[in-house]
């Protein structure tokens, strides 16, 4: 077993884990943060995307021990319970950026990372290019792209990062 400690959604977390535990397993099974999904389990689909030290990563391909001493943010960490949604979440709701919703946490975490890297004024072309690591099997992406463009703009006016 390996002792790990990290900050998850702003809260310090300590645990003793088998080194082969994936970060996504640790988040879902140990911390019960089940918003992060396992889709393909082969780093293709992006349903498991979380932020590690502020950068989008695939938590199904990251060992929990490798996140030791680092900071993790999941979809649950974007906005507090009961508080208004994060602008990117609100944009997905407003623009019908989801149908079944399975890919949505990963889409939103990827989108927020994209805004952090490339700013608030994003062309459709840039958004589509940046979504190459996130698969959606319902929407055909049209509304996801519209949601991200709107969410990026809304983030400029929001206190939530």
């Amino acid at each position, binding site marked *: 077993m*390996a002792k790990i400690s990290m900050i998850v959604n702003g809260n310090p977390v300590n645990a003793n884990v*088998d*080194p*082969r535990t*994936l970060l996504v397993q640790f988040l879902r099974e140990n911390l019960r943060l089940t918003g992060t999904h396992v889709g393909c*389990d*082969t*780093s*293709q689909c*992006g349903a498991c*995307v979380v932020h*590690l030290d502020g*950068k*989008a*990563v*695939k938590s199904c*391909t*990251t*060992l929990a*021990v*490798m996140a030791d001493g680092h900071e993790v943010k999941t979809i649950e960490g974007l906005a507090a319970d009961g508080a208004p949604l994060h602008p990117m979440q609100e944009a997905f709701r407003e623009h019908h950026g989801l149908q079944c919703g399975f890919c949505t946490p990963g889409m939103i975490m*990827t989108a927020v*990372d*994209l805004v952090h*890297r490339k700013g608030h004024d994003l062309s459709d072309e840039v958004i589509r290019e*940046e979504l*190459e*690591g*996130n698969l959606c099997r319902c929407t055909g992406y049209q509304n996801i792209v519209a949601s991200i463009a709107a969410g990026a703009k809304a983030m400029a006016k929001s206190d939530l990062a």
Partner: protein
Amino acid sequence: MYEFKYHRPGTVRQAANLLVKNEDAKLIAGGHTLVPVMKQRLASPPHLVDLSHIEGLDTIEMKGRSLVIGATAKHAEVANSAVVGEAIPALAELAGLIGDPAVRHRGTIGGSLANNDPTADYPAAVLALGATIVTNKRRLKAEEYFQGLFSTALEADEIITKVMFPLPKKAAYIKFRNQASRYALVGVFVAKRPSDVRVAVTGAGSDGVFRVAAFEEALKKRFSHKVLDGIAVSAEGLNSDLHGSAEYRAHLIGVLTRRAVEAANAKD
């Protein structure tokens, strides 16, 4: 995934000692090659030695006339580095084409080269630019480093610490991606160096990355895509699979080399 013992050395020397002490130990940095194969149980190392906490192993800098990239520099760091963009823009572009944004936040140049996947991107750049792989023990020229499918000159207790790239006069990388995996179905890196021209191909060869001598000779005389007309690439020794036949890949090598030469010339 099978059980393993996890080690986190603070220095390259400690990491090397762990490799000596623990037979069949594997190095891990970003984990984006190793973790997937461990999950599939294609690899089951009893020990993992994590390089990601060794300080200074990810430095990117100019040293004299060479661009030096630390082994644990991540693809996104290489892609966005002003130093790389200034020195060898084609290399920054190549790094920006690996996987997807999340993969580029974790995967490292050292990991890619140590694994030597026959469809990985970095091997083409390293071979075409004539880079030197620096390890904890010695310096290896690109030509001696790559030794076929998933095979390199690295010894069991040898660790890549950095890669030194001499600056080319012109260079470009063109990749034809597999749409699902985003690996190169064929990728061609063309480098016009002070003394010669090198054309390195990844994704196509059944024995890994290789150079195309006929193209190199023609391009050395005149660095224009027009000199490639009429020179055919043989399909012999090329991969044939559900993504494309050997003949298709041979054809792509010609097409992509022409595009790469054009792109390199357009950068002036």
